[in-house]
């Protein structure tokens, strides 16, 4: 995954790296929800907060921007649709297509909101280890007795482990097929089957081997997880976030 995307954990010593994961997940959810309902002033405050945090934790915005390409195209589409679809006083007209002021404003607001949410996720992933996230999820699911938290945490670990295996397998399969000139076949149906069957079959075989290995090592659900501890910084951060969110809601 690391070669594929810059959205992964990078070690560091910033404030966000030090905060407890449980608090970070809570902040993430809280701010995402708040940003849904707030107007321009609220968005300005949130953007200010985010910019400060991004500067503080040295987020690699340049490589991040490359990942955002498709997201930006989607945003533009929404903006255009919003501008054309909302009735109101026309800002300017090209032939019969009118771009309205309320349409433009609401389009900008929605796009801004989505950018804020995306940046939040980026910050979170950048500053949090996946083993910590796993432990935090287990902690959050503990009160729900009917959900097997340990199983879910193990499955999440397995997913992260399987991703590079599948990517390697896919690369190998694609290269083998290129060597056999399969690219000349234009039938998409044929190509999908010829790509899908070997990838799935071989990765399932690897999974079989993994199962045997896990059993041979007496796998059980009772394992030692990363230790989570809340310090004073976490509570102070919680208080600050609450004040900011309260302020935004009351505006």
């Amino acid at each position, binding site marked *: 995954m690391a070669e*594929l*995307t*810059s*959205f992964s954990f990078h070690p560091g010593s910033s404030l966000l790296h030090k905060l407890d994961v449980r608090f970070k*997940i809570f902040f*993430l959810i809280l701010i*995402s*929800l708040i940003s*849904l309902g707030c107007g321009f002033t609220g968005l300005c405050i949130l953007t200010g907060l985010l910019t400060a945090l991004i500067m503080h934790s040295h987020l690699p915005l340049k490589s991040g921007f490359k*990942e955002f390409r*498709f*997201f930006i195209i*989607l945003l533009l589409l*929404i903006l255009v*649709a*919003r501008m054309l*679809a*909302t009735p109101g006083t026309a800002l300017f007209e090209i032939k019969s297509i009118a771009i309205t002021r309320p349409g433009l404003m609401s389009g900008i607001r*929605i796009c801004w909101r*989505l950018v804020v*949410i*995306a940046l*939040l*996720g*980026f910050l*979170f*992933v950048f500053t*949090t280890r*996946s083993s910590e*996230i796993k432990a*935090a999820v287990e902690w959050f699911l503990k009160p729900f007795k009917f959900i097997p938290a340990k*199983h879910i945490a193990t*499955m*999440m670990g*397995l*997913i*992260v482990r*399987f*991703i590079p*295996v*599948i*990517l390697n397998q896919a690369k190998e399969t694609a290269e083998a097929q290129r060597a056999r000139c399969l690219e000349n076949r234009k039938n*998409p*149906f044929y*190509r*999908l*089957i010829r*790509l*899908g*069957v070997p990838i*799935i*079959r071989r990765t*399932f075989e690897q*999974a*079989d081997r*993994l*199962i045997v290995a*896990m*059993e041979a090592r007496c*796998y059980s659900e009772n394992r030692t997880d990363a230790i989570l501890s809340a310090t004073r910084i976490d509570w102070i951060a919680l208080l600050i976030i609450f004040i900011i969110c309260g302020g935004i809601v009351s505006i």
Partner: protein
Amino acid sequence: MESSNQLRMMVYASLCAALTAVGAFLAVPIGPVPIVLQNMFVYLAGLLLGGRWGLASVGVYLLTGACGLPVFAGGLGGIGRFVGPTGGYLIGYLPTVFLIGKIAQRAHPRMVTDVLAMICGTLVLYACGVSWLKIVSGMPLTKALALGMVPFLIGDAIKIAAAAAIAKALRPVLRIEKLRPCT
């Protein structure tokens, strides 16, 4: 090689979830628009694992993404994706995979029922995805349909046909079939 079914299905479900995650990056480049494999892997999770474990597979995939691990398309994780414009499609995977698994499981595995199951699943997926896109972006229904459904229909038809063929080819190999009554 007699493993406990619980562990075996758990690892298989994780593998399917990982395939779904990787499917967002794997594309068969044909014509101007590449065919992205993600929803084909969701269909296959339903067909191969059945309703219950398919649901577990997609559920854990979504949870992993919600926690911020980079498994969603474009590498962007985080709970924000559910609130974003494409969140409906992600949530829609849950009923989709369950429906496909249930329908395909009930009948003796045959290609016709598989295809029917996947068509039903796709309808549910777009019902969730398009209505959420409409709510979040505030577009009128026709625009939301034109942007969020119509461009993908041909690709989906190809994927459904391919998934049915792949499921048929793989079912005897994966030996999930005979495990099913026990799980």
